[in-house]
């Protein structure tokens, strides 16, 4: 489990001055994790790249407007990414059920179709959770973030995060049990 640490204040200060090197370091540091996060939620490489690009674009606009993060840049970026994903799903709602004949084309080809189907089933099940439940599940169990970072990303108290986590797991278990004959 990755401990929550504030972002390097000097790095953030340099980023606020739009220093190219600092911004490049931030992109290299956080964009892979953001891509994985978006990929797990969206299931499409192109859309995930779009999510990452828009997340960093919003970050730049925030810096320009002097509204960027004071610290905890990682939590800030994940929050931006998740907001974009929520907006995306509002525009294009995810499928309620898995279409076996047309699995998500963005997924990597796996060795067996069965494994691919199980993965897609889980992704679809996750998408059926509320946005906050999805966020808790992905941040905590996929990105290995601790409760404090998740709390900062969702801007909620740690107690609320634990409660969300409990309800999300219960709901996910229920969905998976319903899908398995």
């Amino acid at each position: 489990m990755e401990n929550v640490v504030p972002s390097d204040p000097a790095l953030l200060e340099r980023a606020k001055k739009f220093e190219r090197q600092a911004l490049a370091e931030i992109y290299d540091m956080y964009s892979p994790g953001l891509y994985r996060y978006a990929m797990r939620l969206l299931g499409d490489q192109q859309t995930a790249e779009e999510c990452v690009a828009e997340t960093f674009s919003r970050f730049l606009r925030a810096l320009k407007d002097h509204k960027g993060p004071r610290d905890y840049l990682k939590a800030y970026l994940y929050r931006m990414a998740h907001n974009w994903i929520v907006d995306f799903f509002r525009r294009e709602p995810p499928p309620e059920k898995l279409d076996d004949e047309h699995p998500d084309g963005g997924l990597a080809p796996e060795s067996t179709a069965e494994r691919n189907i199980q993965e897609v089933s889980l992704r679809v099940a996750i998408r059926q959770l509320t946005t906050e439940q999805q966020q808790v599940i992905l941040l905590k169990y996929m990105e290995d973030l601790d409760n404090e970072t998740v709390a900062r990303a969702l801007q909620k108290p740690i107690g609320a995060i634990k409660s969300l986590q409990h309800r999300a797991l219960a709901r996910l278990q229920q969905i998976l049990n319903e899908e398995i004959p």
Partner: protein
Amino acid sequence: MNENHDLDPQLEKELARVREVPARDPNAAARGRARFLAEASVMRPKPVERKRQVFIKRYAWQAALATMVVLVLVFGGGAGAALAAQDDLPNQPLYPVKLITEDVRLNLASGSQAKIDLLLQFVDVRIDEMNQLVVLESDIPVKTTDAHTHTTGRTDTEPGPGRRRGRRNFASDPTNAPSAPPPGKRRHGGSWIIPQSDAIWSGRCIHRPVSGLFRNALYRERDGWS
């Protein structure tokens, strides 16, 4: 996952499978990075603007100070010039400033008596100037008498004592225009100098329109009136 103690082992296994995502396309990642940095370079404040802001902040107080110095020099210098001009003679460069200050003083004087007093004072000043010019053996410029005319606002033809109105008559009047230097007096250019009274009688003055006050003063000096 020390905080995942409440996670069902089966569910944890399922989630672990989803943890793996397809590798990110390096080309797409590079394009995204380049796009991000390009966008940042567009949003970056221009160095010229930053330098200008720094310049303004750094030198604003110096510019204000310089402005104040210029204002002091302009207005203070003008006052100084006016003060220095008070001792100038008609053939000196600041003499027009002296005349302007006299005009200003005359315009600012309230009441007829105050204006008359000032005019009389200026007449004395003119006479002093001419005396000084005589001592320096300099010609009396025409502008001296013109200046007095300008100061009084009169192109006077008022008769002085012992003469008639009008400069032609005045000039041709043998009782007024000295035709020859009296004994004990010497010539100075076109003028007679009366050493006893240090007064001057200029033929040029005779032929110029001069004010009655100025002419009377000259007569007083010439004839030894008290």
